[in-house]
């Protein structure tokens, strides 16, 4: 167990307790032990001899915790192959966390739902989950009341999460919208929130190395995503020039978000 409020910046070794298939190409690795962190925070996951990457903590239990991923690259593929008893390094927790206000709506697009999942665990809120199709939906048993949207209509309503969100914002007085998902989706969510004068908090993703605000790889405008984020409020998002437009690849070169997404897979 990590000590409450203390962050470890050198990998601590945890044993894998189980690996669950959550959907098509979607897995959760569970680790033995208790881990303390707040909803929206992330850890750096080290697979010795493979790589180390930031992952949202998606399950927080008494004697285990987990992280969920889509197998897109080498690292996530290797993560999906770990076995019970394997040793994995974890450092963190890193970043800020969601504010957890009542009367809120939580939006999770694709595997982005994993970044808001412990937020959903801890509060009553309307949850909207979007995915490309029925096979890519996450946590349908864990969160039974989610409003589901799919791109192809194979489950829930056909269309983007913003359609469902607008319906909710029309009907229900909403204090906050929390979201995580593809950045284009989050940009649309922010625009809707602006239209309905509702505050929004979005969890951003940028290429990271250190996780603790030193290397400068994950800058968006003049913000250090790993340390000043990953969660930013409407106020901050509305002034960002790079949000929804540009990101930096591993070399530090600035590219369009489309190019960045293609590189990330």
């Amino acid at each position: 167990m990590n000590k409450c409020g203390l962050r470890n910046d050198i990998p601590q070794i945890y044993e894998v307790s189980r690996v669950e298939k959550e959907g098509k190409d979607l897995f959760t690795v569970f680790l033995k032990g208790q881990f303390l962190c707040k909803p929206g925070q992330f850890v750096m996951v080290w697979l010795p001899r493979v790589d180390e990457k930031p992952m949202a903590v998606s399950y927080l239990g008494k004697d285990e915790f987990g992280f969920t991923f889509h197998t897109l690259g080498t690292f996530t593929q290797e993560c999906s192959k770990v076995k019970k008893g394997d040793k994995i390094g974890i450092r963190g927790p890193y970043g800020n966390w969601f504010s957890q206000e009542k009367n809120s709506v939580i939006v999770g697009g694709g595997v982005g739902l994993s970044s808001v999942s412990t937020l959903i665990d801890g509060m009553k809120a309307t949850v909207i989950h979007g995915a490309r199709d029925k096979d890519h939906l996450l946590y349908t048993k864990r969160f039974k009341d989610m409003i589901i949207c799919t791109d192809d209509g194979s489950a829930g309503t056909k269309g983007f999460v913003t359609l469902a969100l607008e319906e909710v914002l029309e009907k229900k007085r909403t204090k906050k919208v929390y979201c995580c998902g593809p950045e284009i989706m989050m940009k649309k969510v922010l625009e809707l929130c602006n239209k309905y004068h509702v505050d929004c908090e979005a969890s951003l993703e940028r290429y990271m190395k250190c996780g603790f605000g030193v290397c400068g790889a994950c800058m968006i405008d003049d913000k250090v995503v790993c340390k000043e984020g990953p969660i930013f409020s409407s106020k901050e998002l509305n002034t960002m020039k790079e949000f929804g437009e540009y990101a930096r690849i591993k070399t530090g070169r600035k590219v369009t978000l489309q190019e960045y997404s293609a590189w990330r897979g």
Partner: protein
Amino acid sequence: MLSTTLCGMKLRNPTILASGILGVTKESAAKVGRMGAGAVTLKSLCHEERKGNPNPTMFGRKGQFLNAVGLPGQGIDNAIDDFKKLNDLDVPVIGSIFGYTIEQFGEVAKKMASLKPAMIEVDISCPHMEYSKPFYADEDSIEKITKMVKKNSGKIPVSIKLSPNVHNIADLARAAEKAGADCITAINTASAMKINIETGKPILANRIGGLSGPALRPIAVRCVYEIYEKVKIPIIGTGGVTTGEDAIEMIMAGAAAVGVGTAFYYNGLEAMKKITSEMEAWMKKHKVKTLSEIRGKAHE
């Protein structure tokens, strides 16, 4: 009280952001300036775009920090498009460069100079890179690189950044001075390693990396002290400075200014303000009015 000049650069205080910490983008350099740095050094750039090493590339703990980032960078050509110029921020910007060959040092220097930085720093001293091995411990190579960079930098002052992984750092600094260097930055990180004993694996993907932070400071102080004895050009004393007292010590060893990197790991964006306010408090208490009163004091 803290203002000083370094190779013609007017600094409101002697703290300089060290290369490789936050300075990947112009926005982050500007931010560190707003947070109180006297000057900022950008992440080192070379003639080509580089991915650097796989992760883990760094980790920290009390007193020690290890990294083997592997000099990722967008390359000087992309940087020219990205930065446009470097003399339009409120803080002086130092451009850090390297190359794999002596000619490439010249090529990158010329391009960096076109961005008009306040100074060009030459990184020949990254401890875990193949390119720097033939250079960093060799007086002859240091002379050639210095001459090459000077020839291509016009009037912009040039600082040569040295490695502590040598037995003759003062002679190397002297070689740079003889070849026309305007300044010495000392030191880069010390070659180091950490093994995770649960898995039996080195933590850094590159296995070997560089040590920075408080554990490096006594080595840095010794290097600055030795260099000060042998050269007349100013020294940017770098290595493990996190407090005002640390900075005062570095200046007493002979540093004209103080490089600060890993302190951002320990103290976040407040790192520079903490150092400068503690320096001021110390100077007031000891009735020291300017830094020149204590510079090199340890040599008296």
